[in-house]
């Protein structure tokens, strides 16, 4: 799993996104640092409201217009700074270089247009051509994502398809222009286990074919464990731990990560009590001192309440980072 | 005038929109139609400007003979106007579907064509005012018999041939009615424009706007707007003679001594003459009339009495100020004497106001009257109802203190007084006074002009002295013309719309 490339596919440095509302402002993305290499899958996990989707949308610069904006940091796609691009240039990047798959297959297709129209729109924007070839390419794309009878389905409206098929159409749109990165924001939460398994298999195959990088946002540890190479764990707008899947599952450095893993029942194995995390995450605008997880942390001491822990190297090789004072103690 | 000019007159829509004059209570068919007798534009007097060249009657007014103009002819190739046409018109005007009020007299008559150009009407009883049925409001209009025979009633419905100075051109139902000028009319009168169009526009302000925008040459407007129009530089033209009288009437048999037991205190508060006088005394007529009609409108001593007709009593006119003058103290004293309001169960006297098309003054009049009555302590209650509902209420005697009404005084006094006060009237209008009824009955058979005058005066005096109603004003008809387009126009105010003699419209 060692990627020996000089420039990573995507490099995010010190990214901060600010949301300002009438009630005040806060940072749902607060100093993110991570990289994604070719052919790699990065999982972003964390509980609801921790800023996962904000991270994803800031990468394609589609933050809610008036409410949110990137405050600082850099997003480099193969060394090119995305934050400096004009809106028109950015539009070209979207779809053709970075694609995104959204959470809900029920609602992420436009109900008023046929599947074919929606797929070929993506083509047309990046490689215009006559209607006929567009249709042919849409059918191709559908075939690629293993939709049965694509010639027929291409003229269907989204409501005529099942949930799993719809999600595959969304996938077809995403891969239509062979992007370098696909960002998938909880793409399977509303799918059945069996359908989910099919879909994940499909994504893996596509990744193997094209070597694209995938950023997978989820709170399902099953997916992370099965699909991802690297994990980023978010809590309250911050990355609290990052590293390879194996290392983090085997040896979580942050108590939050540890608790999350322990809270999920295993399909096989013990039936003892599950670990729980007491309380709830703080409200976005709550004034905080120290580690935001400290109030819920079983292992917090006075230092945790006093000072925000910096990002520390957990294993000493720079591959496994965590922001917890306990790392220093190990 | 310009080469091809169309005169546009915007008026509020009449009750009915029809070419069959006898079935309506008023219509704008007149420019193309004629009656036997005309009205002088300047004085309103009967003249021979219409189809009859001359007329005469026998001693006791039971037989009237009319001689037609020998050269009169229908427009549109329907030939000369003959006695046969008059007979034919008489027949359709007295048929079952006839609704015209003015032809009531005709119903009892028999008609004879004496010769081609002479007709005679024979009446069972003396009718001194018979000319009224042939001139002005609600009179016999002469249709072409030839057209009827050729085309039937549909012919009249689509384009009735008349003998007037204009030819019927067409009608947009609910919208307009158009006539074209006849270039060589048999009377020799020739309007200086080519077309005339009547437009039905309900909203006075829209009519005013049409006038101001130059879209209409002439419009009828409520008094207030007339004033405004005059201020804006338009000309207000009034009819040469009074066109309308307005009054308020009490209803019920309040002067009938025999009805004493059956009337209840509420409905018959005014059965007491003191209350009636008090009501009259409470009103500042000068103030009201000035507000409502402007200057120059005359107070009316007795409704249906008019200087142009027999029965006019100068004495009553002279006494009017003294007997009906504004005197709230006296009014209050009278009411106190009569025991009002304490002696009545119900203090509120409903004041029913009907908002009649074209008479927005009535609403204001009612408000003013109510305010004045309030001052002397008579509470009234206002019901704004449309004409029909108001009439229903009156007929059912559910409206007690009643409606401002109007009627054209071109109706001879002798007719009017019967219609509004005696047992000849509709039941609800009959005040039930034996004396008035008695005089009225005598009047019917009396042919001596002097005696008739005396009888009428007697009736008027009785009404006047008994405070049998609340007379308001004699009002001329008026029209507002665009002063940039129209020089002048005189009309006597003898039709239901008040407008006539369109051929006399003088353009700039």
């Amino acid at each position: 799993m060692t990627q020996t490339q000089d420039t990573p596919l995507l490099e995010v440095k010190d990214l901060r996104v600010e949301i300002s509302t009438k009630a005040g402002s806060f940072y749902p993305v607060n100093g993110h640092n991570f990289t994604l290499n070719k052919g790699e899958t990065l999982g972003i996990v964390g509980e609801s409201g921790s800023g996962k989707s904000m991270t994803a949308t800031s990468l394609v610069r589609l933050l809610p217009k008036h409410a949110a904006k990137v405050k600082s940091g850099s997003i480099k796609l193969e060394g090119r700074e995305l934050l400096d691009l004009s809106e028109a240039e950015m539009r070209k990047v979207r779809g053709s270089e970075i694609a995104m798959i959204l959470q809900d297959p029920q609602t992420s297709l436009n109900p008023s247009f046929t599947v074919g129209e929606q797929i070929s729109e993506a083509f047309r924007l990046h490689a215009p051509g006559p209607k006929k070839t567009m249709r042919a390419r849409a059918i191709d794309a559908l075939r690629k994502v293993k939709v049965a009878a694509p010639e027929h389905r291409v003229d269907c409206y989204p409501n005529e398809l099942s949930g799993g098929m719809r999600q595959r159409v969304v996938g077809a749109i995403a891969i239509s222009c062979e992007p370098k990165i696909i960002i998938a924001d909880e793409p399977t939460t509303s799918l059945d286990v069996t359908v989910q398994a099919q879909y994940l298999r499909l994504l893996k195959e596509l990744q193997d074919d094209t070597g694209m990088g995938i950023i997978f946002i989820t709170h399902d540890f099953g997916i992370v464990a099965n699909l991802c190479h690297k994990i980023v764990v978010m809590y309250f707008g911050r990355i609290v731990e990052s590293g390879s899947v194996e290392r983090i599952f085997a040896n979580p450095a942050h108590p939050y990560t540890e608790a999350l893993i322990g809270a999920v029942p295993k399909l096989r194995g013990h039936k003892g009590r599950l670990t729980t995390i007491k309380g709830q995450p703080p409200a976005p605008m709550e004034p905080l001192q120290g580690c935001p997880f400290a109030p819920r942390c079983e292992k917090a001491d006075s230092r945790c309440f006093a000072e925000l822990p910096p990002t520390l190297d957990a294993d000493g090789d720079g591959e496994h980072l965590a922001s917890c004072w306990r790392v220093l103690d190990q | 005038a310009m080469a091809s000019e169309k005169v546009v007159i915007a008026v509020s829509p009449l009750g009915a929109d029809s070419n069959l004059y006898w079935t309506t209570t008023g219509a704008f068919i007149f420019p193309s139609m004629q009656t036997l007798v005309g009205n002088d534009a300047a004085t309103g007097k009967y003249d021979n400007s219409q189809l009859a060249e001359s007329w005469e009657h026998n001693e006791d007014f039971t037989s009237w003979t009319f001689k037609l103009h020998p050269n009169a002819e229908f427009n549109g190739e329907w030939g000369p106007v003959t006695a046969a046409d008059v007979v034919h018109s008489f027949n359709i005007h007295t048929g079952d579907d006839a609704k015209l009020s003015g032809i009531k007299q005709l119903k009892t008559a028999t008609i004879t064509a004496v010769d081609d150009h002479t007709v005679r009407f024979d009446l069972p009883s003396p009718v001194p005012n018979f000319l009224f049925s042939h001139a002005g409001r609600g009179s016999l209009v002469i249709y072409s018999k030839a057209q009827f025979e050729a085309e039937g009633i549909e012919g009249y419905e689509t384009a009735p041939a008349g003998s007037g100075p204009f030819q019927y051109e067409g009608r947009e139902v609910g919208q307009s009615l158009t006539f074209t000028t006849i270039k060589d009319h048999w009377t020799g009168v020739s309007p200086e424009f080519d077309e005339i169009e009547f437009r039905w526009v309900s909203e006075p302000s829209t009519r005013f706007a049409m006038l101001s925008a130059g879209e209409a040459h002439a419009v009828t407007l409520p008094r207030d707007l007339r004033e405004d129009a005059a201020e804006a530089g338009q000309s207000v033209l009034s009819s040469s003679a009074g066109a309308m009288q307005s009054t308020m009437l009490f209803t019920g048999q309040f002067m009938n001594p025999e009805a004493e037991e059956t009337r209840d205190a509420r409905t018959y508060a005014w059965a007491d003459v003191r209350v009636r006088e008090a009501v009259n005394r409470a009103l500042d007529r000068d103030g009201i009339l000035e507000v409502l009609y402007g200057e120059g409108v005359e107070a009316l001593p007795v409704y249906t009495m008019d200087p142009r007709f027999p029965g006019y009593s100068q004495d009553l006119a002279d006494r009017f100020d003294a007997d009906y003058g504004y005197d709230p103290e006296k009014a209050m004293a009278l009411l106190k004497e009569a025991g009002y309001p304490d002696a009545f169960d119900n203090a509120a006297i409903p004041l029913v106001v009907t908002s009649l098309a074209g008479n927005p003054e009535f609403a204001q009049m009612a408000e003013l009257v109510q305010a004045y009555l309030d001052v002397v302590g008579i509470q009234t209650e206002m019901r704004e109802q449309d004409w029909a509902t108001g009439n229903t209420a009156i007929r059912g005697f559910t409206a007690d203190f009643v409606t401002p009404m109007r009627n054209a005084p071109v109706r001879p006094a002798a007719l009017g007084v019967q219609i509004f006060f005696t047992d000849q009237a509709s039941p609800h209008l009959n005040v039930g006074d034996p004396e008035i009824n008695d005089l009225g009955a005598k009047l019917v058979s009396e042919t001596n002009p002097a005696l008739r005058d005396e009888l009428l005066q007697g009736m008027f005096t009785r009404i006047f002295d008994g405070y049998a109603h609340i007379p308001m004003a004699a009002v001329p008809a008026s029209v507002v013309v665009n002063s940039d387009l129209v020089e002048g126009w005189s009309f006597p105010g003898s039709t239901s719309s008040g407008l006539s003699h369109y051929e006399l419209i003088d353009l700039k």
Partner: protein
Amino acid sequence: MIDFSVNRVSAMRFWVRLWSLPLVPITILLVVFIIPAFFADFIAPHDPYVPNLRARLQPPVGFGGTWEYILGTDRLGRDILSRILHGAWYVLAVSMIGIAVGVVVGTTLGLIAGYARGWFDGLVMRLVDISLALPAMLLALALAAAIGASFLSVVIVVGFALWAYFARQVRAEVLLLRNSDFVARSQVAGSSHTRILFRHILPNVMNTIVVLATLQVGIAIMLDASLSFLGIGIPRPTPTWGLLVSDGRDFIATDWWISFFPGLAILLTVMSANMLGDWLREQLDPRQRQI
């Protein structure tokens, strides 16, 4: 599925909400509508009914008029300001009672129809159709003629014109609510239909009713004005705003103030009521669509 989480969000921002109270429309409503409605007797400078023939057609201050008659006088010399102030009560009464009639009838029918479904639902929906298919104005004319134009007839017409909207909206909402989990839970708990209807469903449609009612104030006032225009409104001399505007309409080009100021009162009141309604809707139920 109804998103109940909005309640959580909006409650959290209670103070924020208070801060964002739409002060302008509320102030206008108070000054133009509510206060005059109750205190006209004390604040009106003149008697609204008594004509003063000596002071006819005074223009308003600033247009050649005097402070005696700030907004001018009408054709009969009555003070426009006083008439507007006194008229407020009638406008308030007509709109409130009319809306109340609409709310009570519409909500009751909508509630039962949505909950019981079946033939009753079908019947109510047909009635709604019928009521929408009859232009309110024509019905008003016929009704006014039938029972006579009066305060009562205007209230009935307003109520008739509005009930169907309430019935429809409430029914639609009840249809959603009756399938909601909390209703199911209450059924599981063994609650009776009445208990479910009045304890669980009705409180949850209250928001909608309040919002809709606020938005209907404008429609009610407009309807009242139109009825006056047609001569079948509250009878004169009651100075309802509709009548004032309607009476003055002939003089828009000349003595404009007669209808302008009552018109302005209507405009301000309706606008403010609508703005308040919008605000309420946003606060109470952002998903509610405008009808």
